[in-house]
């Protein structure tokens, strides 16, 4: 990756302790994002993409533990940072979050105007001296800042094509459709003027025509404001639509990272290739991958894909492959590029 990285995750290890044992959900994951780019984090169930996205923001469930690795944001190690400073400066401010479920992400009892202003009270891009040391209920919201924030919020709602933002402010979440709520969530993330937005499967719950609208909106806003986006998805098509780069994860390990063009033209990891192959194609046979996604309680050793991989050899189960490549990165002992060379 050229240029100063905005986000650098190195060798991140996270495990969840459950009733049935310890699940090693992230097994030393690397991820690098350059500023102003949209990165797609693609994976199936259990791939760890959601855990990674949430780990960056520190919003993991209570049974999660960080077992190693670092997350550097704009050069700063945010895992080692003082939690209060992190909450105040980074979380929800420089790194914003767009959640997956537009239906459950709003408090059904409060008007969205109130919910938005509540957000702005704490995370407005306009900073003032009061940092809320009196606690949530007693902290004062200065009138001038409040008005400025409100103007900015209404302008943002118009940007995301919510009709009549003034009236929308007074409405309850139930009065908005799923697509509109997702627009509101995106607006709320953008309002804090972040450097990075982490969007967790932002269009999964939406119909395909609404999905197209939302993706279009997200891409336009991100590019206009030079905001980086880390978007998790299980759908390759969605990644293809708006991402500049793509990282594929399998069972807690990242296996391939590349810019979007080279990725789809020339996938190098066996899993990636098989995954793309199994997408429905008219007129072609349906191809399966064979086997099942492993349980993270008893994950395979070394490269976790090796039990299902046709090219696996002994070394694949012995140790996790290292990183090869610079722009197009793959972690495999037998990447397809090499296999092709051997055959020819």
């Amino acid at each position: 990756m050229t240029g100063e990285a905005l986000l650098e995750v190195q060798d991140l290890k996270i495990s969840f302790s459950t009733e049935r044992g310890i699940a090693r959900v992230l097994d030393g994951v690397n991820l690098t994002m350059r500023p102003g780019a949209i990165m797609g984090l693609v994976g199936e169930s259990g791939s760890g993409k959601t855990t990674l996205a949430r780990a960056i923001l520190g919003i993991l469930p209570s049974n999660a533990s960080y077992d190693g690795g670092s997350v550097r944001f704009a050069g700063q190690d945010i895992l080692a940072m003082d939690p209060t400073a992190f909450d105040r400066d980074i979380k929800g401010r420089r790194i914003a979050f767009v959640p997956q479920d537009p239906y459950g992400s709003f408090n059904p009892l409060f008007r969205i105007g109130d919910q938005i202003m509540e957000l702005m009270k704490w995370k407005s891009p306009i900073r003032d001296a009061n940092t809320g040391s009196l606690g949530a209920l007693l902290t004062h919201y200065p009138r001038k800042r409040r008005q400025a924030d409100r103007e900015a919020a209404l302008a943002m709602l118009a940007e995301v094509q919510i009709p009549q933002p003034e009236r929308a402010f007074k409405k309850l979440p139930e009065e908005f459709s799923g697509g509109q709520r997702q627009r509101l969530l995106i607006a709320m993330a953008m309002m804090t003027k972040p450097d990075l937005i982490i969007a967790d499967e932002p269009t999964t719950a939406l119909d395909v025509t609404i999905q197209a609208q939302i993706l279009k909106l997200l891409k336009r806003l991100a590019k206009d404001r030079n905001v980086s986006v880390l978007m998790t998805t299980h759908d390759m098509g969605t990644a293809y639509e708006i991402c500049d780069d793509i990282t594929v994860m399998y069972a807690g390990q990242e296996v391939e990272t590349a810019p979007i063009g080279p990725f789809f033209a020339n996938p190098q990891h066996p899993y990636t290739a098989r995954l793309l192959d199994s997408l429905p194609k008219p007129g072609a046979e349906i191809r399966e991958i064979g086997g099942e996604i492993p349980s993270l309680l008893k994950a395979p050793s070394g490269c976790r894909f090796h039990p299902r991989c046709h090219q696996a050899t002994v070394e694949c189960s012995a140790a996790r492959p290292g990183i090869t490549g610079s722009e197009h990165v793959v972690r495999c002992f037998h990447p397809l590029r090499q296999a092709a060379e051997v055959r020819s």
Partner: protein
Amino acid sequence: MNATSPMLSVQGLARHFPLRNAFGIRTGAIKALDEVSFEIRPGETLGVVGESGCGKTTLGKTLAGIHVPTAGRMQFEGKEISALTGPQRRAIAQRLQYVHQDPGNALDPRWTIRRSLDEPLATHTTLSRTERDARIEEILTAVGLPSAHLDLYPHELSGGQQRRVGLARILTLKPRLVILDEPTSGLDVSVQATVLKLFRALRTKFDLTYLFISHDLSVVRIMCDRVAVMYLGRIVEIAPTEDLFSNPQHPYTRSLLSAIPEIGGRRVTETFTLEGEPPDAGRLPSGCRFRGRCPSAAPQCAEIEPTLATADGRHLTACHFART
């Protein structure tokens, strides 16, 4: 019933859900299904696609007898079934089955697999214990499950295995028509491929006819012989699959198809133009229900509601401006 007459024939099927205000007085209705007519021929797979609120799930459940139709008629294997109730309607279930989106959830969590698989046979057939056991074994093999699973409970199986058990339960009756409701929704891509292959194999092995309800057009394209597109309770277009995909006639179908990402091809986000959202289902516009978002809308669209019409007898469209 001969080989060319339809297996299922539906005319003017409607299912309305009443809207009530705080006093319980009816203020209107949501026409989840409104004047739906079509046929399914033996051995074919008919796809039904549409977005949320289009009525495809209501259609599936009404055909399966879970909902009672508000209006309209259905004939199955030549027999009029829309007026049947009680034991007579239930008897139809042996030959007309419905598979939920997540068949694993369709199992009683307190029953063993064996008991769940035995229930349909005990309800509909007079087979002896041994004959029923033999049928269960046969079906288990067909869906790829070991007989060791018979004594387990649903929560002791994986999601994929539960799904297969749910399918097996339907198949024990050896039905003729199977309604699949969003069978691949929420599945990982790799699991989806396996499930689709299974459906194809079962179709051949048991000579099944499918009604394939899905919002995923790429899946529908490879599984179905014909496709019906629904919007707000009506079929707006119905045609043989490749016909529909290569030559969509209804503006909504065209928008729907243009919203599907094509890896390696054009970017939807650059070409997609459909704005807005479907109108409130309880207050539909006059005339054509798509006219609020339609790029080709004209004054007549507000006055006359278009009905399905065709030029070649195979490709039907409900639009005043259908290009044929």
